[in-house]
């Protein structure tokens, strides 16, 4: 790293004790300005947010105040009480906590500091955890779940009484999830234990740093903010979009056309990291690369569904630089330092400018050297999206998602956790919780309903009073009614609810249903995918084509299907929806022919033909095209709001068209557009004013229509299951037994149905609804879009399909409408039996 000698006006450098100055000097380094600046704030007792790109020495900056404090602390005299934890470090990943400990050990040992440090994660053996409670280390490195556990223990207050600093790493990734909500509540609790606590947040660049600044400090007074220290970005990355003579496909996500070029790039670099958006894309890319891998380059695969041992092997190989390329999903997104990556290839569109910037940051972990990256769009819309992302990255645009209000299921978990630690007084706990940024707007009624939920389930029918988990005693404080309650709480703490998965076990015996002998486990796969398979179906997993044999208990049996094609496409859509920012940019690009020059010729030609045959919408307009094809009529709209919002829109539009007599048959949604096909000529309906487009797209669809559709939707059921688990309504684990995902799913669905019918206002249904609105349904974004396009809908009634409609028309048939067709399917199956019997 090329350190510039910095001249300090005495004061900042004066903060560094000689020991530290010498340590920097011995290494030929000098402390960086942001490290000193952060130090100055922390030493003054001010919480602060450090925003810096990868490789800027963020970790050391975060720990410097602690190390200096600890170095100057007088020695504990024998016989005096042991000291509590001095600094708490919290990271989103176990592996990161372990990694940081290793890195931090270096300066501590080299300076000979009297500092003890230890990690505490789910993997820490219980005897070590016990010991840590009696004799805590000075610096404890841990995860949000472990903090929740520590807080729920009766000796929490004593354990944390000497706490001085809390360092929150990768804060930008923590705050957007329910884990972040849980952590914010934990932080509020720590502040009650130690009002003078100083919080240091370490973050990558984000769109709204002020939200993170509020997050770090007590929100009483409302809107209070931590200080901020920002490090300007390092060298600009060199990003290019893959250039090819091959035809860029109209639709799909495979990017097969680009494989030879990608392989060439791998050969020309030391180590290439290839990012994709979904597990299935990773599988596909890995397989295609090995197909052309004539030089037998060591190319590996890394995604969250693979067996842990397999993943560790790949990570080890990365550390020792013995791989030439790794195909990875978001499992490698976070800041773990691995190997000597000199090229990042992003296959498929990055979906967000900030995500792209962070992924590119994985190459060349040195701030002052430019990172190299190649974007590989998989289809024509993605070409525009990549272009937009590329420009955004140069401009430094940020589109990290805005923070959402704290989830109520997490709150319920925390309230029970607090009671497990010590009896609480409702007024005081309410005030404390409102100090946490995500819960700053929590109203008292909702809080009281949550307490009621924790106590007896929160039902209108008060039949569980005598079984209450927490009870209000005479002194007005709530306490746990039985030690068993605390024991159960500890088993179920946390907010990570995995989609139910099954082991994928390899077997040699084929075609014998589930009566097969087991072989090695290849990894885990989501149950909902396996649900759609019948024995004999083939699919891609762990880098090869497998044949589904059957399910036995918690395992899925597969055999080799070499030489066969994978018949069942694993869900191919993007996991991340297109960010609002990029969506706007893509719309802007469509509207402005001047910007087409930056696009490959085949793509700009495509847009020119579209302008000729139909029209290109202006940036804020919504284009709706209608045309006949075959014996059906199609309507294609281009909102560019991402797949989730489009899926919700599709559900609502088809309901409305049904009522208007349009006879819709189905729809398909992509990140960019939505297509509906119907029996009747929708273009004519709109043209003849029989049913207006403005009425069809009126935002009142977000009222009753949404409500009615949701009632039976699997989306809401899946969301409810998560809320039920996190809030403790149903338990993942009982002492001595763990429910399998399957068992949990069944009972959660039953509970959901009963609640919907008998207590639709129940607090947990409310929590489910608001979760779904910001999550799987993306209602918020849909609502914003509907109000944006009011009075700005452009209708083109065409005689035939337009160029812009081709990509989505190619998706039809690949995806199905998840509707309420179950009864129909049952009817068909029963009928086919009759046919068979009558005909045979």
């Amino acid at each position, binding site marked *: 790293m090329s350190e510039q000698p910095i001249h300090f006006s005495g004061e900042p450098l004066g903060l560094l004790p000689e020991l530290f100055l010498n340590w920097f000097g011995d290494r030929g380094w000098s402390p960086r300005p942001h490290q000193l600046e952060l130090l100055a704030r922390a030493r003054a007792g001010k919480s602060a947010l450090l925003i810096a790109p990868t490789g800027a020495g963020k970790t050391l900056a975060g720990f410097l105040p602690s190390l200096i404090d600890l170095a100057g602390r007088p020695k504990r005299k024998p016989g005096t009480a042991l000291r509590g934890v001095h600094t708490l470090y919290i990271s989103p990943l176990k592996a990161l906590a372990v990694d940081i400990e290793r890195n931090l050990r270096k300066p501590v040992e080299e300076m000979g500091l009297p500092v003890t440090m230890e990690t505490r994660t789910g993997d820490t053996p219980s005897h070590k955890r016990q010991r840590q409670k009696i004799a805590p280390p000075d610096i404890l490195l841990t995860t949000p779940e472990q903090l929740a556990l520590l807080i729920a223990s009766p000796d929490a207050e004593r354990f944390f009484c000497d706490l001085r600093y809390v360092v929150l790493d990768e804060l930008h990734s923590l705050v957007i999830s329910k884990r972040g909500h849980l952590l914010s509540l934990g932080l509020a609790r720590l502040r009650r234990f130690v009002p003078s606590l100083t919080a240091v947040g370490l973050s990558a660049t984000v769109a709204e740093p002020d939200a993170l600044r509020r997050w770090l400090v007590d929100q009483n007074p409302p809107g209070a903010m931590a200080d901020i220290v920002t490090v300007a970005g390092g060298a600009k990355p060199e990003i290019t979009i893959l250039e090819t003579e091959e035809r860029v496909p109209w639709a799909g996500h495979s990017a097969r056309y680009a494989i030879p070029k990608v392989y060439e790039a791998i050969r020309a670099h030391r180590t290439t990291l290839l990012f994709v958006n979904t597990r299935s894309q990773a599988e596909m890319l890995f397989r295609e690369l090995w197909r052309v891998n004539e030089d037998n380059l060591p190319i590996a695969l890394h995604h969250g569904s693979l067996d842990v041992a397999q993943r560790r092997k790949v990570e080890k190989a990365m550390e020792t630089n013995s791989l030439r390329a790794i195909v990875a999903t978001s499992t490698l997104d976070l800041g773990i330092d691995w190997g000597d990556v000199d090229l990042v290839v992003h296959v498929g569109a990055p979906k967000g400018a900030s995500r792209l910037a962070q992924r590119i940051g994985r190459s060349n972990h040195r701030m002052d050297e430019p990172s190299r990256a190649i974007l590989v769009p998989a289809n024509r819309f993605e070409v525009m999206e990549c272009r937009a992302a590329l420009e955004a990255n140069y401009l430094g645009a940020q589109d990290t998602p805005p923070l959402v209000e704290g989830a109520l299921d997490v709150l319920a978990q925390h309230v029970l956790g607090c009671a497990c630690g010590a009896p609480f007084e409702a007024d005081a706990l309410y005030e404390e919780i409102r100090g946490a940024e995500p819960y700053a707007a929590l109203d008292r009624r909702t809080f009281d309903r949550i307490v009621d939920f924790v106590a*007896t*389930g*929160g*039902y209108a*029918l008060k*039949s*569980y009073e005598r*079984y209450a*988990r927490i009870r209000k005693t005479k002194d007005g404080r709530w306490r746990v009614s*039985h030690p*068993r*309650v605390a024991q*159960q709480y500890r088993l179920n703490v946390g907010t990570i609810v995995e989609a139910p998965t099954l082991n994928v076990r390899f077997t040699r015996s084929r075609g014998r*249903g*589930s009566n097969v002998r087991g072989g090695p486990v290849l990894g885990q796969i989501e149950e909902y995918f396996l*649900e*759609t*398979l*019948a024995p004999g179906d083939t699919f891609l997993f762990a880098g090869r084509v497998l044949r589904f044999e*059957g*399910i*036995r208990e918690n395992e899925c049996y597969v055999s080799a299907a070499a030489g066969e094609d994978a018949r*069942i496409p694993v869900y191919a859509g993007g996991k991340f929806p297109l960010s609002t920012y990029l969506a706007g940019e893509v719309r802007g690009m469509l509207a402005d022919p001047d910007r087409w020059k930056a696009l490959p010729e085949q793509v700009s030609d495509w847009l020119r033909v579209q302008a000729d045959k139909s029209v290109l919408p202006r940036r804020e307009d919504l284009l709706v095209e209608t045309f006949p094809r075959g014996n059906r009529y199609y309507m294609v709209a281009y909102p560019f709001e991402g797949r989730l919002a489009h899926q919700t829109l599709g559900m609502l539009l088809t309901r409305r068209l049904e009522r208007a007599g349009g006879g819709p048959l189905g729809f398909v949604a992509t990140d960019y557009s939505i297509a509906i096909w119907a029996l009747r000529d929708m273009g004519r309906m709109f043209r003849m004013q029989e049913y207006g487009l403005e009425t069809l797209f009126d935002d009142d669809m977000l009222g009753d229509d949404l409500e009615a559709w949701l009632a039976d939707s699997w989306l809401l059921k899946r969301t409810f299951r998560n809320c039920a688990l996190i809030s403790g*309504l*149903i*338990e993942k684990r009982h002492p001595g037994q763990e429910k399998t995902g*399957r*068992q949990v799913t*069944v*009972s959660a669905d*039953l*509970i959901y149905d*009963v*609640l919907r*019918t*008998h*207590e639709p206002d*129940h607090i947990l249904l409310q929590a489910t609804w608001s979760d779904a609105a910001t999550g799987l349904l993306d209602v918020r974004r849909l609502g914003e879009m509907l109000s944006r396009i009011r009075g700005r809908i452009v209708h083109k009634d065409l005689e035939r399909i337009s160029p812009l409609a081709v990509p989505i028309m190619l998706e039809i048939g690949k995806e*199905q409408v998840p509707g309420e*067709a*179950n*009864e129909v*399917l*049952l*009817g*068909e*199956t*029963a009928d*086919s*039996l*009759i046919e068979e*019997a*009558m005909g*045979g």
Partner: protein
Amino acid sequence: MSAVAIVTERGSAVVEIAGERALCDHRGALVFPELGLLAVSDLHLEKGSSFARRGSFLPPYDTAVTLAKLGMLLAEYQPGIVVSLGDSFHDGGGADRMPAVFRDTLVNLMAGRDWYWISGNHDPEPPRVLPGRSATELAVSGLVFRHEPLLGAGRGEIAGHLHPGARIVRRGRSVRRACFASDGERLVMPAFGSLTGTLNVLDRAYAGLFRRDRLMAYMLGAKRIYPIAGHMLVPV
């Protein structure tokens, strides 16, 4: 086998068990019109309060829902004999715990009928606070009603206990429902209670109970029964 299943206008499937004609109602009851007998199995009443005792607060509406459904069926079929095929209560204390209002409802439903409580593994002791007769099994005509199917018993056995469910996969989608399972000799009833799950009829727990080539799953639909042949079913 060429058993074309008949579904009545009211959506029930007509089956024959050991020569006796019966209707599988889509709400989960088995009716023998000639005998004036209606059977339900695995009501699991007071499951909610049973869980609440252990700190899991399931919605406290299960008993009300189950009784309402039972009341509807009794009003429709007017059976003189009712058989509750075991696991009527989720645990031994269920009948005592049942709120008075539900106990009254249940007693009203029982009035004027021969009511048999068959003992189950969840409720081995008869519910003392309720009328009706208790038995470990009941023989009527050529039929034997017992909670757990007995290997080797076979012909004419009507049982519960297993909570049978079945699954089909069609056009890439999977549908799973509770079902009556029968091979014409024996019939295993679906669980009637509102918070009860299912166990796939192809699970090993059913081994030896049915002739596989004659197995039919009468899957419960929203308004009718869907009779599905065993070979069209998918495990788990």
